[in-house]
């Protein structure tokens, strides 16, 4: 009996690798397992190696795993690139002329060659060849075939009876092959019954959370790994009276969204590094003119065009500081796909309440890979539209030109909607007085700067960070705190568990979700008397620098970085930890 399975399909781009991986992943979700996935791909459409990795477990997991138990190779590179990650006793499935099982004693794996193409053609559907391999894989972990058949009927429903029938036959063929050739390798996966699970990517969760929070407009420009947010909302927004616009560039993307926000709409833009660079002037305008805007930045490998289809976390400082002059802003970074939904929803509340840009950071790992997520709770984040005035409230001000930037105790001025009868007002990117008119008066300037830059001080999301340790260890009393952000959550968490099991020092895992303004009070308590090790996917240790800038931790903090375009593996994390500790 096994409690987890790590599986990968690899092949050339354009060969349906993604859909094969996704199908097997979704099958496992249907069986009640927790599934995490990771896709490797290149910046080209046809050709080039790509693979889809998954790990299914009986308990919740957040990491697609270091190893591979079953590797479905549809090209040569699949084995070359992944051989070092094969687990002991792994099985490799390869296209071959006849069914044949070969043992590699030295490396301790088996290769099963099988004429997938030929067998699928015999079934009358050459496209079903990958389905035979899914059948083999399912049989190897002893998944009951009936549910799989049911699932196939569901997903191929639109393609018709014939396609359903041949695919079901293909799966049956796979089960038969396992029985005939691989029965001694079958190792059943323990039954799981995780209920009410959703399977989605961070991009989908972000888009979904935004829609549920009342976002009705997105304007953006296509870019990996953020495009999916735009594409998802393009399908879903019209049903709720909204729309997506793909516009001429990222500057237009943010400018239209700011315009819509000015009109009183919850509107956003989504992009990646190159786009966020182009948006910086407009971010400054939103900060200065106090217009809400939500910007999603799904980070990828930089600098410049960099590694466009690879993972990195190197825009941190750009998101926090990028733009000339000084503006109020909030920068959030969900640690899981589940959190992406809620944090996206919260970002609209914060943007409207504080009337400033809110940047939601994602990274390629978080954006593009799917994971199981528990069903969302409609009560966790409520919609709060901040100090938006109604026509009735406006009347009470009795102003024939509304002072849009009036000074208040909390620095946040009430906001009429454009078009309201008593709400004529001026919004401006120039320094301005309470009425919005240009000013260069030094005293007024100082007051306005203070108003803007101090208003977000108290901004705080529901979960500014996640803090965990192993059972029996209080996270507040450990020797070493591992600190991360974004999609490294799963890997750091598992690494921490392993380190605690080794039983030398004690470890806790802190994952920061609110990067700016930092929850300083809580962090400073937490950091006391501990060694701090940030774990981040960039060269310059941007998270470490950020923490050092705000907290006196210079003699107790260091970092582990990786910037090769790939996410951390647990084994490399543990190796690096050995060097540091």
């Amino acid at each position, binding site marked *: 009996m096994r409690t987890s399975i790590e599986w990968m399909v690899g092949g050339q781009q354009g060969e349906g690798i993604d859909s094969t991986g996704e199908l097997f992943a979704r099958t496992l*979700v249907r069986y009640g397992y927790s599934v995490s996935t990771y896709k490797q791909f290149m910046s080209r459409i046809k050709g080039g190696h790509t693979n889809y990795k998954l790990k299914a477990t009986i308990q919740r997991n957040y990491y697609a795993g270091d190893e591979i138990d079953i590797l479905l190779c549809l090209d040569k590179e699949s084995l070359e690139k992944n051989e070092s990650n094969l687990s002991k006793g792994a099985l490799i499935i390869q296209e071959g002329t006849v069914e044949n099982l070969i043992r590699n004693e030295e490396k301790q794996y088996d290769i099963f060659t099988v004429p997938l193409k030929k067998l699928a053609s015999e079934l009358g559907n050459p496209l079903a060849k990958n389905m035979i391999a899914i059948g083999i894989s399912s049989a190897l972990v002893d998944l009951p075939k009936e549910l799989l058949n049911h699932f196939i009927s569901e997903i191929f429903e639109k393609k018709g009876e014939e396609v359903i029938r041949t695919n079901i036959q293909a799966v049956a063929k796979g089960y038969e092959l396992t029985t005939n050739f691989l029965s001694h390798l079958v190792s059943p996966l323990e039954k799981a019954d995780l209920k009410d699970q*959703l*399977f*989605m990517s961070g991009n989908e969760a972000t888009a*979904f959370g935004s829609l*549920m*929070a009342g976002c*009705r*407009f997105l*304007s953006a420009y296509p870019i990996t790994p953020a495009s999916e947010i735009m594409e998802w909302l393009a399908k*879903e927004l*019209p049903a*709720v*009276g*909204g*729309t997506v*616009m793909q*516009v*001429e*560039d990222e*500057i*237009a993307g943010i*400018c*239209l*969204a*700011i*315009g*819509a*926000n*000015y*009109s*009183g*709409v919850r*509107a956003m833009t989504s992009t990646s590094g190159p786009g966020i660079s182009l948006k910086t002037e*407009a971010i400054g*305008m939103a900060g200065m*003119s106090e217009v809400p805007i939500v910007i999603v930045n799904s980070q990828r490998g930089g600098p410049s065009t960099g590694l466009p289809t690879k993972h990195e976390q190197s825009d941190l400082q750009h998101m926090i500081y990028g733009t000339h002059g000084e503006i109020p802003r909030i920068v959030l970074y969900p640690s899981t796909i589940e959190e992406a939904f809620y944090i996206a929803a919260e970002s609209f509340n914060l943007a409207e309440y504080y009337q400033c840009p809110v940047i939601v950071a994602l990274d390629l790992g978080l954006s593009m890979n799917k994971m199981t997520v528990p*069903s*969302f709770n*409609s*009560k966790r984040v*409520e*919609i709060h*539209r901040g100090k938006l005035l109604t026509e009735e409230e406006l009347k009470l001000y009795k102003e024939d*030109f509304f002072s849009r930037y009036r000074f208040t105790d909390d620095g946040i001025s009430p906001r009429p909607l*454009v*078009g*309201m*009868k*008593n*709400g*004529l*007002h*001026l*919004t*401006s*990117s120039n320094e301005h007085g309470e009425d*919005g*008119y*240009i000013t260069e008066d030094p005293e007024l300037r100082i007051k306005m700067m203070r108003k803007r830059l101090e208003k977000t001080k108290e901004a705080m999301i529901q979960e500014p960070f996640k803090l965990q340790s192993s059972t029996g260890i209080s996270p507040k009393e450990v020797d070493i705190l591992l600190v991360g952000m974004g999609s490294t959550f799963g890997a750091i968490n598992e690494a921490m568990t392993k380190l605690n099991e080794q039983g030398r020092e004690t470890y806790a895992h802190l994952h920061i979700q609110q990067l700016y303004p930092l929850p300083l009070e809580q962090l400073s308590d937490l950091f006391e008397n501990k060694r701090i090790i940030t774990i981040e996917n960039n060269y310059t240790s941007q998270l470490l620098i950020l923490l050092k800038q705000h907290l006196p931790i210079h003699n107790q903090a260091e970092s582990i970085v990786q910037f090769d375009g790939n996410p951390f593996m647990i084994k490399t994390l543990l190796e690096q930890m050995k060097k540091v500790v």
Partner: protein
Amino acid sequence: MATMKDLRGDAPTWCPGCGHFSIMAGIQKSMIELGYEPHEFAIISGIGCSGKVSEYIRSNSFHTIHGRSVPIAQGVKMGNPNLKVIASGGDGDGYGIGLGHFVHASRRNIDMSYIVMDNSIYGLTKGQTSPRSEHGFVTKSASSENKEYPVDPVCTSIINGATFVAQGYSGNIKQLTHIIKRAIEHRGFSHVNIFSPCVTFNKVNTYDYYKERLISIEEPFHTRDAAIQSLREHHGLVTGILFEELRDDYQTKLGIDFDMQSVQSGEMDHERLTLMQERFK
């Protein structure tokens, strides 16, 4: 009905004689004569001497950044289709840094008006060459006379599908007002380029220069080609409504029952959430 007084905002700081004054007056007169209230408008301006117009007209105004009034204005209209949206700015703002947005707005045809105060120079930054400066134009920002040729704004919008294209002149406020009124009432993207002498820095394109050269037309050309041909023959110095075409604007074409502002504070829509979640199972 609004009066001129109702539409007066901050006190203008333009140089006496600046062409921008008449353009602002033309916009204000149009608002009055069309019978709208100030709050039915949103005036979105860029940066330049011209960009200050949003502060000088009392309305809903947004004084934005250099070159981006057009995309911001389009977003405003998307957000609230009931507003009359006017974007305005200078020739540098619109045909230099903002040229890309202008071309795309022309072909997108969102229902708004774009009024450009074209003085063929960078006024606010004190007299550098603009993308509208003539070949051979001499300014302090170039080491020799201008070796480039000017952008042709109206041919650009005509050729890129704008559904209303007109040209006016600060010295003819009557025609100007007529044009702006028609532009505001036009359903779709209307582009109005207005020759607006900069009395301080442009010693070539003066009131006299325009008075001598401009010809005006009474009726729009029937085809885009005819408009372009005539403009070419007259070095672009033609005023009047050059071309108009009735075509569904962008939002009408989308056919969506827009309802973007009405999101209320309170719990998320539980039913929708439950329903939409199903597709992730």
